[in-house]
C-alpha cells in the first residue's frame, strides 16, 4: 500500500512534464490595445470615469447632504437665542405695564 502511494506521488510529480501549453485568447492583443488607448485618453477622462462610479457618486451625495444638514441645523441654533431674547423683552413689557397700571392710583 505504501509503495503504491509512493508510486502515485512520483507519477503526480512527473505529470508536470506532461502539462502542455495552454493558449490565451485570440483577441489578447486587441484587448491590450483597447486598454492602452483608454489609458491614453487623458486624465480628465479617467477622472470623469472615476466620478461616475456609482459608489463614489453615492458617497459624494451623502457628504453633500451631511454638509447641508450641518449648515441648516447650525443656522437654526443661532436663531434660538434671538427668539428667547424677544420673549424676554415681551415679558419685561408685560411686567412693566402691570407695574404702571398698579401705580396709576395714588
Amino acid at each position, binding site marked *: 500500500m505504501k509503495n503504491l*502511494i509512493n508510486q502515485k506521488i512520483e507519477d*503526480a*510529480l512527473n505529470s*508536470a512534464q*506532461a*502539462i*502542455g*501549453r*495552454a493558449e*490565451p485568447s485570440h483577441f489578447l492583443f486587441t484587448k491590450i490595445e483597447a486598454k492602452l488607448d483608454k489609458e491614453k485618453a487623458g486624465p480628465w477622462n479617467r477622472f470623469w470615469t472615476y466620478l461616475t462610479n456609482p459608489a463614489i457618486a453615492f458617497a459624494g451625495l451623502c457628504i453633500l447632504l451631511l454638509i447641508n444638514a450641518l449648515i441648516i441645523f447650525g443656522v437654526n441654533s443661532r436663531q434660538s437665542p434671538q427668539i428667547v431674547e424677544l420673549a424676554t423683552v415681551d415679558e419685561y413689557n408685560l411686567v412693566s405695564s402691570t407695574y404702571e397700571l398698579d401705580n396709576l392710583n395714588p
Partner: protein
Amino acid sequence: MVALLRQEDRETYRYVVDTWKGAVYNTVLNVLQNESDAEDVTQDVFIQVFESIEGFKEESKFSTWLYRIAVSKSIDHLRRKKSQKRFAFLRSLWNDHEELQIEPVEFVHPGVKLEEKENAAALLKALEKLPLRQKTAFVLNKMEKLSYREIGEIMNLSVSAVDSLLQRARQNLKLHLKNYFEQLNA
C-alpha cells in the same frame, strides 16, 4: 526592438505580444490556476511592459524582465484575492442574505493530456498549498523549463537559493500528495 517599443510602435507591440504571450500566459495560469484571472493578468503584464519600457535598463534579457513582471503581477493578484475573500467572509457574518462566493474546487488545466488528467489534477491541487515563492520557482522550473540561473535572475535569488527553494517545494508537494492519496484510499 526595445527602441521601437520606446517609440510606442504598435507593430512592435504586436510582435512582442505574439512572441511572448504563450510564456506569460502559461506562467500566470500555472500560478493562479484560473483561466479568467490569467487572461486579465496577462493583459496587465503586457500593459506594464509597454508603459514602463523606459525603466528597462537592458542589464538583463528582455524575457527575464518580462517573466519578472509576470511573476510579480501574479503574486499581487493572489494577495489581493486573498484579502477580498477575507473581507467577503467578514461581510457575510453581518449579512445573512449575502452568500459567500465559492471558488471552483478543482482547476482543470487546458493543456493537460487526458491520460494524465488525474495525476496533473492532484499535482495542481498540491501546488495550490505551497508558499508563493516555492510555487513560483516550481512553475518556472518544471513547467516553463527555465534553468536555475534564469529563475535566480527573475526572482532575484542566487542559484543555491533557487535550488534550496525547489527542494523545499518538492518535499512539501510530496507531503501534500501523500495526504491526498491516503485520504482517497481511506
